[in-house]
């Protein structure tokens, strides 16, 4: 018996087990089990209540979003990507000095073994309904001086209000971004910044109407802070 499940660092998740049928039809079982917490088929859901009650990010475009090697590794050793969960108000509480993350409401993502992680990651990479969005982007990854990039990220564009660009600095409501480059496909980063609602109609991220140069500058900053050291030059 092997334990499998979905993605989404902050999701409220329940471990399921796949029986012998898994071997017979792995994609169907992966699809079914991930769907406990994740939207596994399109179209995009614009319903506000659905956004407030969902347990993890949609995965039906996972193959347009994630890097396969990250998925495979993360599933075996999942960490929380979204400090305050997938829907922040559901995972915050009011304390004496203001709202704080209510850790008691957050659940860890189940761990899967290496074979299952490989199988799930490979399947998720086949889910690519938004390829046309990625094909609109013409982005050649570059670099930006870290200090300049940080200033742009925090001061000029305000991204640090919700996102962390280091483990210690930044807001709690958005997914951590110091690991974004390892996690996400570069064209996805660019496309999502350009128009979050094109991917998720009820995205909690604003569309800042940045021009292409501004978007690429942010993506380059994510590369600068997130690229694995062995790949850095």
């Amino acid at each position: 018996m092997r334990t499998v499940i979905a993605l989404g660092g902050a999701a409220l998740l329940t471990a399921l087990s796949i029986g012998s049928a898994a071997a017979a039809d792995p994609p169907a079982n992966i699809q079914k089990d991930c769907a406990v917490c994740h939207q596994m088929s399109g179209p995009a859901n614009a319903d506000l209540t659905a956004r407030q009650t969902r347990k993890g990010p949609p995965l039906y475009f996972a193959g347009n979003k994630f890097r396969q090697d990250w998925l495979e590794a993360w599933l075996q050793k999942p960490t929380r990507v979204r400090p305050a969960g997938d829907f922040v108000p559901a995972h915050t509480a009011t304390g004496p000095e203001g709202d704080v993350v209510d850790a008691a409401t957050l659940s860890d993502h189940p761990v899967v073994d290496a074979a299952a992680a490989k199988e799930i990651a490979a399947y998720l990479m086949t889910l690519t309904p938004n390829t046309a969005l990625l094909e609109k982007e013409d982005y050649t990854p570059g670099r930006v001086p870290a200090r300049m990039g940080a200033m742009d990220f925090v001061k000029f564009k305000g991204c640090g209000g919700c996102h962390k660009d280091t483990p210690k600095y930044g807001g709690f409501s958005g997914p951590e971004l110091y690991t974004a480059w390892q996690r996400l496909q570069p064209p996805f980063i660019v496309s999502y910044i350009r128009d979050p609602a094109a991917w998720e109609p009820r995205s909690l991220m604003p569309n800042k109407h940045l021009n292409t140069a501004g978007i690429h500058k942010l993506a380059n900053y994510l590369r600068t802070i997130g690229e694995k050291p062995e790949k850095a030059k």
Partner: protein
Amino acid sequence: MKKLLILAAFLCGSIVYPLPAPAADAAHGKALYRTYCTQCHGLSGDGKGVNAKQLSVQPRNHQDRAEMSARTDADLFKAIKEGGQAVNKSILMPNWDGNMTDDEIHDVVAYLRELCCAGAK
């Protein structure tokens, strides 16, 4: 009569943001506020959201009757739709026009009026 109609059309066209429609739905505005606004402005609207401590400019306390009364509905609509910079405030308040329709922003404004000023403070 024709001149009056032209004048009326001109005046309407000159209004950037109309006042909230009478049908503005404060209850829906509350749901939208919870979704998009509380991360910075707080679950109770007190300006102490989960992100607030990380922000160099503190979010507006929407329970502050005096502060909120000094803003027109059109001001609030513009700040939400176009962001803080559009009303000479912080860039940390983003534009939400990509997330909410104009009608939905009117609903949020209606809820803000309840939040700040419905009770005795």
